[in-house]
């Protein structure tokens, strides 16, 4: 880390989309009314593309630098500065963030172009593009952030944008509900992330002993990634809550990642997030935002590598999520739901990759996944767009344009969509020489051969492999149900089916090509071909290389595993083809009747949502009601000097307007009211009682005098 180049324009990369968001945000309505949609999307597309070119420029400059010096810093100012503790507002452009930024800007720009067609003639067109640009800003800040807190701005920023975009058509209350669910689940994750930051930072500075916290070296209190990496050595012996600080911090960060990247147990929001427009699902819930968790784990590779338990947790959760989500995906009828669960599953693979220590493999799968998953989503978007258009023309408003059961045989009407969708399916399934094959196979091989996790490598491999079979099956099931066979949606609508406009098809084809070609970045060592990506990311991950251990296996095992993964992909494909091609066979129907229970459980996502509603949400709302009652009656009651008293006055004199407080029980005021009433009773108006007072008063005084002083 000795030599850090300075680059003073990196801050433009995130800020340009922010500028775009601001322009569209404040002047969007006027722009749209006066110059039409053109002006709006002109601004919206220009900004990310500019960012893309700047990123490309710096990417090339980075390529030019010698390997050890491939990191650029753009320091703007000290964001938070308190005496010795400073948090700089600075952007960090090293090989990892370069690759990520490039992917984000490229895919983002393409999806912006796609959206111009998809969102055509939507009234709040400007608002959509403003939020999309805002999202680009947040994602780029997250990726380019130089320290935890700046990354956290991006982290929550993307959460906010996903909320705004999921609930884009806020008129429909369920879509708004989905948005809120996403934001709150993310917020639960962010809570873990923040606690992780605190624990890590303070552990660097000193340590917790039984007598509390002792600050050893205040100089090391930092949140900047590279400085954390420098001082991480001092975490050796430190323990917190009984486990090593590294483990605790990593588990907290991973808790944040599970929310952001939809892993078990906080994945529930992603399927509902499909309520948003399809380009949103493509950009945010497939390519960029959900991968933030993987990027974070990769960025903190030196920390994760220090604790085996944390790595095992990441790998295991990743593998289980991959399998679990794949099972749910099998029988979904909504095309976007299928893709949603597929995303969750693929993310599981990425976490499996980074979990076992093959960080570059995780990133490699992330990049390839971005291409083919975006392509799949946009493909489904184009299908939905066409179906919606056709239904509209045929005045049929009750059928759901997203339900695959009403589709079929669209291949004839939408050739480009079909071929690009097929290309992506092939890539994701892992057919040989496809991008998916290289990245997924690398992950499975690294999982098999790793010696870092407490769980033996072959178990992880086995889970991953079964997941891969299911992936292939449900992808091709969706392909055949949509594009092959005869159109099940009625002749009238079929007449109006035609290919989507040029903007959509061009983007689809670009992504299709990328998803096929993408694999070239990280060719396996086995074939003695140059593995560019691993070499490119090496400086970032050299911190963890020392700690990560691999089992020694002969080349033959590696070849056999590669063959097995090809076999897996092919079997999945054949099965799907047999069951769903041209919708001819009735096996699926018969299976449905024989095992209705299994189907219902899988279709209803193991009733996890209902479980959460019953426990967490009902619990907190219940607790809220109890504390509100407690606050209104108990605390307010005891302390309230005037409430009950005012009511008492009115009861006494029937002055209704003073009767203000209903139902407020209150001790003190009642007491003062009672004393007052009792004392008043003495004043009877008869002189005799007064004279008794004189006599009695005198006697009492004499008595007190003797009681007290004798």
């Amino acid at each position, binding site marked *: 880390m000795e030599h850090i180049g300075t680059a003073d324009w990196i801050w433009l990369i995130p800020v340009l989309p922010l500028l775009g968001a601001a322009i569209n945000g404040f002047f969007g309505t006027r722009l749209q009314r006066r110059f039409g949609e053109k002006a709006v999307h002109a601004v919206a597309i220009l900004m990310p593309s500019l960012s893309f070119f700047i990123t490309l420029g710096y990417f090339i400059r980075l390529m030019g630098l010698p390997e050890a010096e491939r990191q650029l810093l753009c320091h703007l100012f000290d964001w938070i500065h308190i005496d010795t503790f400073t948090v700089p507002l600075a952007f960090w452009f090293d090989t990892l963030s370069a690759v990520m930024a490039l992917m984000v800007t490229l895919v983002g720009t393409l999806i912006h172009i796609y959206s111009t067609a998809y969102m055509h003639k939507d009234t709040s067109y400007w608002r959509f593009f403003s939020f999309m640009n805002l999202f680009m800003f947040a994602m780029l800040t997250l990726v380019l952030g130089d320290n935890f807190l700046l990354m956290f701005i991006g982290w929550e920023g993307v959460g906010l944008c996903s909320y705004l975009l999921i609930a884009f058509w806020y008129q429909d209350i369920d879509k708004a509900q989905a948005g809120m669910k996403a934001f709150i689940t993310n917020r639960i994750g962010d809570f873990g992330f923040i606690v992780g930051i605190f624990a890590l930072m303070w552990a660097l500075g000193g340590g917790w002993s039984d007598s509390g916290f002792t600050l050893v070296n205040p100089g090391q209190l930092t949140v900047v990634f590279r400085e954390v990496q420098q001082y991480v050595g001092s975490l050796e012996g430190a323990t917190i809550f009984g486990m090593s600080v590294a483990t605790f911090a990593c588990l907290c960060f991973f808790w944040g990642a599970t929310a952001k990247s939809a892993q078990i147990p906080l994945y529930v929001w992603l399927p509902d997030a499909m309520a948003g427009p399809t380009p949103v699902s493509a950009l945010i819930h497939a390519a960029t935002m959900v991968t933030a968790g993987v990027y974070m784990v990769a960025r903190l590779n030196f920390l994760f590598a220090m604790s085996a338990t944390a790595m095992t947790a990441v790998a295991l959760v990743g593998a289980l999520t991959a399998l679990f989500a794949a099972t749910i995906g099998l029988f979904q009828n909504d095309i976007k739901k299928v893709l949603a669960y597929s995303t969750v599953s693929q993310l599981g693979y990425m976490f499996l990759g980074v979990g076992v220590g093959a960080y570059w493999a995780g990133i490699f799968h992330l990049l390839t996944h971005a291409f083919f998953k975006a392509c799949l989503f946009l493909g489904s978007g184009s299908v939905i767009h066409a179906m919606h258009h056709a239904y509209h023309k045929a005045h049929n408003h009750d059928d759901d344009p997203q339900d695959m059961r009403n589709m079929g045989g669209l291949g004839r009407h939408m050739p480009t969509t079909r071929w690009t969708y097929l290309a992506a399916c092939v890539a994701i399934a892992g057919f040989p020489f496809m991008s998916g094959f290289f990245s997924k196979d690398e992950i499975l091989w690294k999982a098999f051969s790793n010696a870092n996790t407490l769980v033996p490598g072959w178990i992880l491999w086995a889970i991953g492999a079964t997941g891969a079979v299911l992936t292939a099956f449900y992808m091709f099931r969706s392909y055949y149900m949509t594009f092959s066979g005869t159109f099940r949606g009625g002749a009238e609508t079929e007449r109006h089916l035609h290919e989507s406009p040029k903007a959509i098809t061009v983007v689809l084809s670009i992504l299709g090509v990328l998803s096929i070609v993408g694999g070239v970045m990280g060719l396996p060592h086995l074939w003695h071909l140059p593995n560019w990506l691993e070499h490119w990311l090496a400086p970032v991950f050299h911190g963890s290389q020392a700690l990560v251990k691999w089992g020694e296996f002969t080349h033959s095992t590696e070849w056999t595993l590669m063959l097995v993964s090809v076999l897996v992909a092919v079997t999945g494909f054949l099965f799907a083809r047999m069951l769903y091609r041209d919708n001819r066979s009735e096996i699926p129907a018969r299976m449905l009747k024989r095992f209705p229970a299994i189907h219902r459980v899988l279709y209803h996502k193991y009733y996890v949502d209902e479980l959460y509603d019953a426990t967490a949400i009902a619990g907190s709302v219940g607790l809220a009601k109890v504390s509100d009652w407690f606050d209104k009656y108990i605390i307010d009651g005891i302390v309230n000097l005037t409430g009950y008293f005012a009511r008492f006055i009115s009861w006494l004199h029937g002055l209704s307007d003073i009767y203000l407080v209903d139902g407020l029980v209150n001790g003190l005021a009642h007491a003062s009211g009672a004393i007052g009433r009792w004392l*008043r*009773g003495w004043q009877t*108006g008869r*002189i*005799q009682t007064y*004279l008794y007072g004189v006599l009695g008063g005198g006697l009492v005084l004499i008595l007190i005098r003797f009681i007290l002083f004798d």
Partner: protein
Amino acid sequence: MIIGLPHYLIVAAVLFSLGIICVVSRRNAIGLLMGVELILNSANINLVAFARYVESGISGQVFALFVIVLAAAEAAVAMAIVMAIYRHLRNIDTAAAVNLKE
């Protein structure tokens, strides 16, 4: 047995308690005033007795004289007020004069 200081004191004390009882029990305004007079006179007896036996000086007697004078003044004022009450209430029963209360 010769009459000494204690005898006077006892008479004064008895007179004082009679005055208190009269004041507390009588309902008639004038009865009450009589009670007040009794109390004042008991104080006079005390004063005169102490002047003779304790101080063997005359300040006690001077004090008694003043008390007598003031008792008369007070009686005059009280009578005037009772007269005013009578003109309104037709009776001087203190139990009737109770609308100033609580």
